[in-house]
């Protein structure tokens, strides 16, 4: 009887595994979107969901359809990533941001913020509201990026279902909000249209963390609930990108269950708020 570490037995790939690799390779070569280093277990589930929706039983058949039918590829793009988001998601994060990060930002004349993987934009508008309330918004330029054009278009519109506002109001208050949340939007039929002034300093653009380079130097980078969809290799690469894109003493914010453990630069950061995924680059 031994208690040595269970080295994961090297398993023969299944036929489905091989087909998925071929599908991802084909999509990369033909359409330029690189899903090859996404976390396989959850990606597989979503690919199976897409096959079901398309009425197909084999990944090879899905590959055939995706490569020859642009509309099928567009449908694939809608379903292959997880775009769930919310305003003030994990409100304690935003509260900590107000308490620990805002005082640091006050010392800067000009602040550049990057939301990487902003989905339909709720996180970005949450930040814009917070910065307006703290009187910092005018000094900020916010870059909101995502690899998915469709969610980016929603983000740009700043229009969300009105029925969500009750939840969002609660989260806003838990996040330390100081006003009446309804000041920030106008209700029209069943939509909530967010105030245009929130968008003034936001630049929305497409950026793919798997394939695109750094495009600026930032004081703050938020990338929450995006890295969980990547495998360790891609996570490491993206952490490299973030490190290179942060100025010294820049702030990195991650999702509630994410960490710097896979960053080659873990030691170059300090924890800014205990229990929250807010870090400061030291050197």
């Amino acid at each position, binding site marked *: 009887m031994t208690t040595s570490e269970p080295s994961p037995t090297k*398993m023969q790939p299944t036929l489905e595994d091989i087909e998925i690799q071929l599908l991802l390779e084909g999509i990369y070569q033909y359409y330029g979107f690189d899903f090859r280093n996404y976390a396989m277990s959850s990606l597989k589930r979503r690919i199976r969901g897409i096959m079901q929706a398309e009425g197909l039983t084999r990944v090879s058949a899905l590959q055939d359809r995706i490569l020859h039918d642009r509309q099928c590829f567009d449908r694939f793009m809608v379903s292959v990533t997880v775009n769930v988001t919310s305003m003030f998601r994990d409100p304690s994060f935003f509260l900590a941001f107000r308490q620990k990060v805002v005082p640091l930002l006050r010392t800067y004349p000009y602040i550049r913020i990057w939301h990487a993987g902003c989905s339909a934009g709720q996180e970005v508008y949450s930040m814009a509201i917070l910065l307006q309330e703290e009187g910092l918004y005018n000094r900020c330029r916010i870059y909101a990026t995502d690899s998915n054009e469709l969610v980016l278009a929603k983000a740009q519109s700043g229009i969300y279902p009105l029925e969500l506002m009750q939840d969002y109001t609660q989260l806003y208050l838990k996040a330390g909000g100081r006003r009446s949340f309804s000041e920030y939007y106008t209700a029209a039929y069943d939509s909530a249209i967010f105030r245009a002034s929130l968008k003034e300093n936001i630049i929305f653009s497409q950026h793919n963390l798997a394939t695109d380079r750094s495009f600026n130097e930032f004081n703050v980078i938020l990338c929450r609930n995006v890295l969980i969809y990547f495998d*360790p290799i891609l996570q490491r690469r993206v952490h490299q990108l973030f490190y290179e894109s942060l100025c010294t003493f820049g702030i990195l914010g991650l999702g509630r269950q994410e960490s710097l453990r896979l960053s080659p630069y873990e030691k170059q950061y300090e924890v800014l708020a205990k229990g929250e995924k807010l870090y400061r680059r030291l050197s």
Partner: protein
Amino acid sequence: MNVQIVVMGASLGGLSALKVLLSGLQPKFPVPIAIAQHRHRDSRSDIIDFLQHYTSLEIREVEDKDSLQPGQVYFAPADYHLLIEPGYLTLSTDAPVSYARPSIDVLFESAAESYREHTVGVILTGANQDGARGAAAIKAQGGTVIVQDPRTAEGTMMPKAAISTTTADQILPLLDIAPYLSALCSLSR
């Protein structure tokens, strides 16, 4: 057979069942254990603090890409699915499966795919059918499925669903599960 991963699923009544089960495991349990317990999406880590009192195995709320270590207990965080990859764990916020996130099916199916016959799945008490499909997936890969005897379960529906969906290797009273697991995982190594 060489067990390399143990996955457990519990719902209604799960905390008291897990308390009993974990406290019965030997201190140097030779295999990693991953648990999906249905919980409210706002619940925080106090569940883990509670369970930690009853076992010397370290219980950890999973952070994405945690590596799997023997003798560690990995607990699915509220409102995330927990999935097993070869050697590590992954989280996702994909839509709930059968209203559940974490979903026991998702955990079990991913374990079955990553560790195949080296997987052991344990279905505990619960008042829904989550885990039945996952248990069947483990059996289909040649792994082992243990189900809590419904007569000893606060919620009988979940163990019953697993029993009727697949051929469980063992249907055991709650108290017997820990000794059985300890023997199974130690013997096979």
